[in-house]
């Protein structure tokens, strides 16, 4: 079956430092990976959509300078939160899907705690 592993599950970082999270697809080819942040109100904010062999598309209010993403192959993607501050706290989720499907398979999430 299709699985997505995401790590680390939880990171506590000091204000102004950075956190990198990784997303690994198993059992399918992740031609596109969407990175989301789940707010304290539990709504999903799309940060960016990364498709292999295409430019990464960032949503309004999110930039490559703040959330650089790497998607080097069909099974792996990573995103870094640079210079994290309190407003960056939350659960970051990667959702991966293959070219032929619409189903988004989520990783377990990486929770960022900023102190």
């Amino acid at each position, binding site marked *: 079956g299709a699985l*997505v592993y*995401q790590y680390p599950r939880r990171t506590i970082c000091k204000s102004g430092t950075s956190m990198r999270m990784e997303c690994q697809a198993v059992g399918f080819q992740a031609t596109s990976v*969407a990175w989301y942040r789940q707010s304290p*109100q*539990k*709504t*999903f904010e*799309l940060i960016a*959509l990364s498709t292999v062999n295409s430019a990464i598309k960032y949503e309004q209010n999110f930039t490559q300078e703040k959330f650089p993403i790497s998607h080097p192959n069909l099974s792996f993607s990573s995103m870094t939160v640079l210079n994290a501050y309190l407003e960056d706290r939350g659960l970051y*989720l990667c*959702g991966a899907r293959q070219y032929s499907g*619409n*189903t*988004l*398979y*989520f*990783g*377990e*999430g990486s929770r960022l705690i900023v102190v």
Partner: protein
Amino acid sequence: GDSVTQTEGLVTVTEGLPVKLNCTYQTTYLTIAFFWYVQYLNEAPQVLLKSSTDNKRTEHQGFHATLHKSSSSFHLQKSSAQLSDSALYYCVHSNNRIFFGDGTQLVVKP
């Protein structure tokens, strides 16, 4: 533009009674897929149901939903709620992008 609306932020139901979570959508695309995702406490969202066929009922784990393009709806229903159904439920539609509703917290009480 495209959007998904879940009107209830919280639905509370007594165990054994029916439950319905509402979902309506707006889209400019013809070919779209619809999903209900469920997120249990401290877990990742996972697919509960999916459909792209108009007026066809889809079922899983006792839940069912029917896509009605005429009313732009994809409501989630269950005839008898269980305590273990307590979770966050998201209605999602997908074309080349993915649109999440804001989620509905379902609480099933004994």
